[in-house]
Structures are given as structure tokens and as C-alpha cells.
């Protein structure tokens, strides 16, 4: 019995890189471990986008199956798989929103499998709780319009034209809000987002 916490600790200590290698070997235990590590985060993101728990669960399943089937295309480095996983989740959720709303699928310039090398060196601790708190604080510092613009872009996949229409504002104004917000976030998180 004493071995159990030690084994659990060893599993937790395993890096994402090792997890990806095991996924590429089609080790189902690795998928289980990936879900245990990031399942809540993925579900939280998707349910924020689609605002329906049942649909969100379907999309979470789709996300993890996509990762399972496409892990070969991910370059296993020392970094975190979480940003890639979140990108897959976001793309699935926004795809759903767009298909449900009859909108054209145009938000996904960056397909998650397009450039594997992009995802392999992201810092392992990028999504630690301290950084998430900091980005929340930075989002809170944005003006309401700026924050809404960023959220509409990220969580609803709206283009800037669609945001302008949704917000009833000129396109130029929305573009300014978006750029200003992104610059503010970049400045606030300058040390959080490594160069």
C-alpha cells in the first residue's frame, strides 16, 4: 500500500514529452494519463465556447480522439502538450459553433497539425496556476470593449468583421481594440510569455 502514493507521484512527475512518446506508441494508459492531467482544462475551455455541457463532452471526446489519432504528427520535445491540446479543443469547439450557426469556417488559420515544430518547445510550466492567475489579472485590466473583443475572438472564433457587427461598432474601432488589448496582454505578460 505504501507504494501506491510513490507510483502516483512518479506518474505525475512524468513530463508531457514522455507522455507524447507513449501516445505515439499507442499506449492507451498514456491517453488516460493525458485526460487525467488536462481533461478538466479542455472541458472548461470547450464548455465556455459552446455553453452546453453535453455537447462539450462530445467535443472533449472528439478532441482526445484527435490527439490519439494524430499524436504521430506532434514532435515530442521537452515542452508541454497543453497548448496543442487546447488549440485542438478550441478548433473543435469553434468548428461546432460555426457549423451550428451556419457560419463559414474561417477562424482556423493555424491548424494544429500544420507545423508540428511550433508546438514542441513550449515551456512545460506555461499553464501553471500562477501564470493563469496573471493572465486573468491582465484580462481584468483591459477595458470592457477590449476584453470582449479578445473573448469573442478566442472563445467564439469571430472575425474582426463579425465582432464589429456583433458589437455594433465600426470595424476600425474593433481592430484598434483588438490590437491594443493584445499589446497590453503582451506587455503585462512579458515575463510570463518567454521570448
Amino acid at each position: 500500500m505504501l507504494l501506491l502514493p510513490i507510483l502516483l507521484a512518479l506518474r505525475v512527475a512524468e513530463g508531457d514529452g514522455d507522455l507524447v512518446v507513449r501516445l505515439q506508441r499507442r499506449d492507451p494508459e498514456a491517453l488516460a494519463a493525458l485526460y487525467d492531467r488536462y481533461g478538466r482544462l479542455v472541458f472548461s475551455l470547450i464548455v465556455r465556447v459552446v455553453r452546453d455541457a453535453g455537447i462539450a463532452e462530445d467535443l472533449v471526446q472528439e478532441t482526445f480522439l484527435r490527439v490519439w489519432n494524430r499524436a504521430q504528427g506532434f514532435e515530442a520535445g521537452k515542452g508541454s502538450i497543453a497548448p496543442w491540446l487546447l488549440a485542438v479543443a478550441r478548433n473543435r469547439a469553434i468548428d461546432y459553433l460555426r457549423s451550428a450557426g451556419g457560419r463559414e469556417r474561417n477562424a482556423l488559420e493555424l491548424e494544429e497539425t500544420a507545423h508540428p515544430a511550433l508546438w514542441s518547445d513550449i515551456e512545460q510550466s506555461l499553464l501553471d496556476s500562477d501564470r493563469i492567475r496573471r493572465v486573468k489579472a491582465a484580462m481584468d485590466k483591459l477595458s470592457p470593449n477590449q476584453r470582449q473583443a479578445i473573448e469573442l475572438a478566442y472563445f467564439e472564433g469571430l472575425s474582426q468583421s463579425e465582432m464589429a457587427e456583433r458589437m455594433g461598432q465600426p470595424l476600425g474601432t474593433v481592430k484598434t481594440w483588438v490590437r491594443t488589448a493584445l499589446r497590453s496582454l503582451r506587455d503585462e505578460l512579458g515575463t510570463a510569455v518567454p521570448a
Partner: protein
Amino acid sequence: MNHPELRDHYELFALGLADEPEKSEIREHLSRGCEVCMAEIRKAMELAALVGATAPAAAPSPKLRRRILASTGYEPRRIGWLPLAAGVALFSLFAAVYFSGRENQYAQEAANLREQLRRQTIDLTRLNEAFAILAGPETTVTTFGAGPAPPRGKVFVNARQGVLLIASNLPAAPRGRIYEMWVIPKRGNPAPAGLFQSQADGTAMHIQRGPVDVAATGAVAVTLESEGGAAQPTSTPVIVAPLER
């Protein structure tokens, strides 16, 4: 288009908001492995991931994990059986220990009973022998120890069966000592007639089997001797019973 011109467009690209011609330009840079654009896009993706992580925390149903794993054809280990299996194992261990203890207890009780039976068999044999002496028609009886303090009792002598000593008020022999009975002839040295101990209540019964020349015997006596006994008495007798005829 150079990199400074693209600087403000990487994050827009990562969020799906880039306009043309910057969008195509960045795609083209990425497709030829432009290191500057790769690094900038990586930072933009990290920022996007952090924004995604600000979604309010929510928990999926517990069934979702099993559903996902099942959809890969993987049957996860049924953790639900683990406590049951552990319980069965624990119960088995407990039962083994318990019944092992019970078995040891039964074995001990059986050994005790065997010992008790052995003692009772010995006692019965002695009683039979004693009865044979007592019932003999030619058995002589001698009483000894008339006073209140000394050992009291009787000596029964049968010419064919032997000598029976029954005593009371006979204190336990000191440590390392034992009572020895003597058949003392009218002429000659006392003959050793066996060793014995008194009971906790001061009673004693001792039998010396075998023929006795009653006519030639003057007395039966008991002395305290060392544990191995003695060939001849070494102490003053604690019991002396002159035979009466």
C-alpha cells in the same frame, strides 16, 4: 514583407484574426521554416493558450473518461473491483489467521486432553492396584500418626500385591528433596520402596508393587531424600508404621 511589419500580426494570426496580405505572408514564412516567424508565432500561441486557460473551471461527468478510453478500444481496469478484491484478500488473510489460531487452540486443547487422559489412566491404574491391595483378604492394615500435626494415614501390606501407603498432613517436600518409602525388615537393612511426592493438599498415595514377606517385615517408613533417592535412609523418618499382626 519584413518581420517588423509583421510584428503586430502574429497574435492576430494565432487568434484567427489576421487580414490579408499579412495572413498569407506569415503562412508563407512558416511554410519555409522561417525561424523568426516560428518563434513569434510560438509566443503568440502561448498567449492564446493562456487566454484559453482563463475559461471558468468546469468539471465533466465522471463517465467521460471511460467513454473516451472505450472509444479507443481500450478497456480500462475496473478500479471498482479493486476494493472488493482487496476486501476478499483481507478477509481471507483474516480467516487464515483466525482459523490458524483456532487450529492451534484446538491442537493445544487436544494435547491437554491427551495429557489429562494419560494422567487419568495412570491414576486409574494406581487405583486398580490400590484396590487389589485393599481388597486382598490377607492384607494387613497399619495406622500411623495419631497426633494432630504429624502425617497421618494407613499402610496396607499384601504379600502378593505389595505395599500401599495413604497419607495426609504430609507437607510438600522441600525443593530438591523427595519422599522415599522403605520396607524395613525385622532383621537387616531397610529396602527402598519407591519415591513419591505429596499433593498440594498434603495427601499422598504410594504403591510399591510386588510380593512382600510380611512375616519378616517389621515396619514401613518414609524419609526425605535427595531427588534421585537413596539406597539407605539418610534422614529421620517422617512416617513410621510398624506392622501389626
